[in-house]
């Protein structure tokens, strides 16, 4: 592993200006880094800012309504200050992304071959013939049967699992250093999900790319990630190596999340629930954003926002009551 992380996000803040003049704080001071060859899981519920963070990395947020500050350093660039032309050279090349909906992210009026070849020609140049050969090779790598034939098919002829594999093939076309996968298996059946996760693991081992996996499925995180960042209301509330997060979480929100998934080996009559609602991000609360829903809350929690502090080496929590073991021993 080379010195320094592959991508380093510091103090990322994203605010959306609504038509009615309301400002929504979608992401509020996020720090993240991913090393070469590592997989980071970004976990959280709808609206926590995880997808917006990934779109900021890709430079895909609308300039008119999104106000972005902070820094995203990748491969010698600060992506937030990089001109559009350079960003276009990076996207699909060294930076690639897979989206949740394989149905809507392929263009229905071009064959899958055309769409992969376009990426290769744009970034690598060369002849159309060699690009086509590479596209067939990529389809084979993602286990699409008889790729020589499939390459000339239109997206509507492929099943959901196949389309997602085409998306992955396209993302891998130029050997990206960083792959962002936004809920890549959410729309798929368990059996297909297993195939895609297996494929991502295989590809990571072969290419050494770093992956940011955005998901709300903690089972998927446990399977493929090395490190996990949990987001709540625009902030990272906990960050830890995957084993530690699942065995000794240090933020009450993570505890609630882990307690609310049904287990195979543990038949609970009642699952844990997180009462209340996510705060309105147009007016975030003054103190801890989880305070109103937290059973471990203290008076101090509602006064000042808690900092993200290290509880044990490599394990950070945004909770003044951490380490939480003290509360139950």
């Amino acid at each position, binding site marked *: 592993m080379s010195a320094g992380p592959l991508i380093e996000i510091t103090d990322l803040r994203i605010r959306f200006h609504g038509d009615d003049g309301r400002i929504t704080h979608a992401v509020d001071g996020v720090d993240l880094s991913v090393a070469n060859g590592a997989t980071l899981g970004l976990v959280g519920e709808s609206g926590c800012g995880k997808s917006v963070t990934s779109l900021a990395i890709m430079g895909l947020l609308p300039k008119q309504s999104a106000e972005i500050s902070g820094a995203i350093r990748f491969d010698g660039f600060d992506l937030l200050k990089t001109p559009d032309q350079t960003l276009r050279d990076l996207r699909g090349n060294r930076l690639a992304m897979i989206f949740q909906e394989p149905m809507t992210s392929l263009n229905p009026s071009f064959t899958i071959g055309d769409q992969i070849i376009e990426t290769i020609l744009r970034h690598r140049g060369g002849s159309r013939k060699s690009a086509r050969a590479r596209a067939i090779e990529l389809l084979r790598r993602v286990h699409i049967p008889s790729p020589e034939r499939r390459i000339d098919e239109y997206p509507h002829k492929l099943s959901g699992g196949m389309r997602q594999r085409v998306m992955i093939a396209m993302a891998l076309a130029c050997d990206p250093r960083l792959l962002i996968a936004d809920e890549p298996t959410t729309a798929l*059946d368990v*059996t297909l999900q*297993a195939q895609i996760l297996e494929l991502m693991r295989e590809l990571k081992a072969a290419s050494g790319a770093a992956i940011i996996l955005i998901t709300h499925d903690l089972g998927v995180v446990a399977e493929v990630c090395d490190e996990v960042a949990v987001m709540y209301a625009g902030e990272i509330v906990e960050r830890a190596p995957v*084993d530690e997060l699942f065995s000794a*979480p240090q933020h009450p929100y993570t505890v609630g999340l*882990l307690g609310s998934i049904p287990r*195979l*080996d*543990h038949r609970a009559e009642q699952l844990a629930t997180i009462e209340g609602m996510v705060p309105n991000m147009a007016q975030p609360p003054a103190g801890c954003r989880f305070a109103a829903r937290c059973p471990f809350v203290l008076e101090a929690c509602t006064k000042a926002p808690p900092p993200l502090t290290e509880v044990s080496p490599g394990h950070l929590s945004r909770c003044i009551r951490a380490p939480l073991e003290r509360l139950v021993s």
Partner: protein
Amino acid sequence: MTALLEVESLVKHFVAERSLFGRPLAHVKAVDGVSFSLEAGKTLALVGESGCGKSTVSRLVLRLIEPDAGSIRFEGRDLLSLDANALRKFRREAQIIFQDPYASLNPRMTVGQILSEPLALHDLVPSAQRRERVAELLRLVGLEPRLARRYPHEFSGGQRQRIAIARALAVEPKLIICDEPVSALDVSIRSQILNLLRELQDRLGLAYIFVSHDLAVVKHIADHVAVMNLGQIVETAEADALFAAPSHPYSRALLSAIPVPKPQAKRSRIVLQGEIPSALNPPPGCRFHTRCPYVVERCRSEMPQLAADGIGHATACHRTSELPSSAAIVPSDGGFSPVLEKLVAAFSGGPEAVRGSGVSSLGTDPA
């Protein structure tokens, strides 16, 4: 005791293509000979991949669509012979909750109107007392009665699903069909709805048909499970028995693939090769044979029948007795770690369960 619901050899083929003159050219065999029964107060889960026919079965049971063949008996009555009037009466007994709480509530009606409509339709509650009954229904699903004046768009996804449940409960049914009721919801909301469904079952003695592709959820909520593949039930058993030792090769693959929230979980995942065959043209013989790792010649020509062992665990596979042990197929998540176990208990117990918590305690840290 007769079962609440008995379904026998249910068949539904949809016409997929017609000739110029309207003659059917191709059929999708969505449901092809499905039988099961369900007792009052119990939960049967239907599981399988997209397109296996699980949602079609649930609609057939309510006669929202008409079957081509087979029989459905509800409390001993033959549902298929009911006339329009009797069918309407039956709708009081069985209700359905859909996956998408955004699409299944009329955006132009207030919650109060949504909930009083079934009361009026079935003439259950005199109009003077309807408001009271609506309040009662809202309380039953954990919402405040004052919310009756609001419109669906003012609610979150979890709250809308609660409203959909309240609407189903309005007619005091004996059976509720839950078609992927929690798939569209976030994890923490999902657990609230699952808890609610369970609590209501205990209190009101409801039976559920629970359609889901999330197998951990199924394990949590179901008493009995039927695994479907391409319009047929390939295995059916008590939930605990199925998860302890799935028998059919398809169930094995399905259950082995459950992602579990435990890093480095021990698993022997069976990754199926090949695509799901089309229900338009299901393969001859066993419909799973194109993807089955244990396929033999006989499977390609002869369709296996569901055969039960002594304790009601039935499998449709020619090779049931020859297959290797499946005891280690379902991944083990080892439950909670000791620390997490305590933390989750404290989390669920509220402020009283944690030392020194509560906003009123002026923030003294006990440690």
